[in-house]
């Protein structure tokens, strides 16, 4: 009973399912050595973790990465003072030896079948496991909006997971594994597909959204390539068609899921100036291509890079997609 009561006071608050699964966090018991409005210098106790220190000083255990990154350590060492930054110290992630980039990975289907667009469940799980075991932190796509506007610092090894189209394997194969690892992901729906028999249905979509791990955003209405004009299509007709491709999926998703649709994955990853203009007018914050590579803080928010993860790729190819830092000697 005493153990349970003691544990009581240290449970991680659950409302925001974060990149890591909620776990019990013991109360930090070390001593503050000095502090000002920028830093707390803290001598940890033997039982302290960065999670417990973050909970005590930053208000939430999920902010442990801020302390880990700043001190360049995976865990506190007793007898070694920890510097706790109270404000973002480097929101752009530019350092003397280069700058941070955030890879956004793009999946389509998970499970069985022969297609380069299908990643087997075993490969997908191995990839998530690799991320978890190697210090990568899966962040939400919406965090990128704040990163590219310079408002938010992200973990040094931040990664975003996305899935295109709305295939039912997202629910049957990917979702259980995302829950297992506590990783959030964004699912881009092209809404005409949702009537197909191998597509997600709204019940599945709502269940995933309610978990707090899955976010649903636009991938057009019909999956037409937005930069391709129809034969004899006038400028006005083209703009009207684009508006439909941009507006309809948002309306449908927002009508069925308690979410705000502000992100758009272009079908085939293609956009042009007219598309960007319509996206801006429609209030979308982020647009995603399939131009590979990581995204620096100065990335164009409506032309974010995204790296496709394909079925036949090796583990080494997957690792090379995790482009979290661009080396440049800036001294």
């Amino acid at each position: 009973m005493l153990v349970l009561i003691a544990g009581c006071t240290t449970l991680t608050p659950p409302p925001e399912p974060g990149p890591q699964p909620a776990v019990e966090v013991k109360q930090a018991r070390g001593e503050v050595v000095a502090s000002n409005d920028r830093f707390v210098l803290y001598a940890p106790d033997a039982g302290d973790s960065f999670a417990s220190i973050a909970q005590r000083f930053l208000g939430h255990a999920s902010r442990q990465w801020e302390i880990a990154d700043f001190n360049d350590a995976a865990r506190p060492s007793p007898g070694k003072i920890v510097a706790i930054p109270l404000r973002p110290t480097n929101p752009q992630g530019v350092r003397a030896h280069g700058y941070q980039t955030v890879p956004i990975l793009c999946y389509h289907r998970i499970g069985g079948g022969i297609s380069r667009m299908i990643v087997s469940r075993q490969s997908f799980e191995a990839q998530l496991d690799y991320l978890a075991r190697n210090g990568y932190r899966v962040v939400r796509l919406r965090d990128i909006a704040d990163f590219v506007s310079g408002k938010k610092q992200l973990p040094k090894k931040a990664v975003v997971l996305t899935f295109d189209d709305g295939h039912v394997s997202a629910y049957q194969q990917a979702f259980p594994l995302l829950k297992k690892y506590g990783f959030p992901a964004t699912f881009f729906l092209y809404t005409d597909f949702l009537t197909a028999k191998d597509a997600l249905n709204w019940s599945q979509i709502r269940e995933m959204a309610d978990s707090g791990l899955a976010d649903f955003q636009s991938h057009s209405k019909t999956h037409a390539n937005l930069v391709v004009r129809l034969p004899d299509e006038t400028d006005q007709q083209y703009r009207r068609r684009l508006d439909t491709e941009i507006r309809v999926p948002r309306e449908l998703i927002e009508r069925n899921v308690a979410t705000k649709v502000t992100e758009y994955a272009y079908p085939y990853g293609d956009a042009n100036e007219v598309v960007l203009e319509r996206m801006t007018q429609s209030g979308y914050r982020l647009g995603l291509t399939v131009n590979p590579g990581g995204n620096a803080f100065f990335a164009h928010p409506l032309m974010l890079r995204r790296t496709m993860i394909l079925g036949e790729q090796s583990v080494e190819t997957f690792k090379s997609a995790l482009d979290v830092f661009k080396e440049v000697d800036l001294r």
Partner: protein
Amino acid sequence: MSACVRQVRFLALAALVGGCTTLPEPAPAPPPAAAVPDRTVPAAEEAWRERAQASARERRWADALQHWELLALLRPESGEYRAQQNLMRERISESVRKSLAAADQARQRGDLEAAQVEYLRVLSLDHANAQAAEGLRAIERARVQRNYLGRKPRLVM
């Protein structure tokens, strides 16, 4: 143990455990901690001092400044740490001024790669420099325009 007693105990336990999940976020006052061991502060001072000096030698001025700042917080009475902070700030200020000028010149002659490196250099020294951040965004917009917006569509993935 009677079923009734077991039930009362279970309910009491459930109430306690149930209460756990609704605890408000602000952390309660920490329990009294043991005194900081004698060697802890001197060890941190030594490590941060070495890091600050090494960073300065390697011209990593921002990293050096940050460590002198931590040292000044640890030892507010130290004149040396304050002086080192001031020295690093002067070096950063001078380098930022030179790099911003170089970036502007590079953009004027159309050398976006060189301008980008200069703006990045500024931000590696002064993380809050809005002029450099906006310069980098402008370069990226131009790059996107040139490399992606005008090209032929990918019809099939």
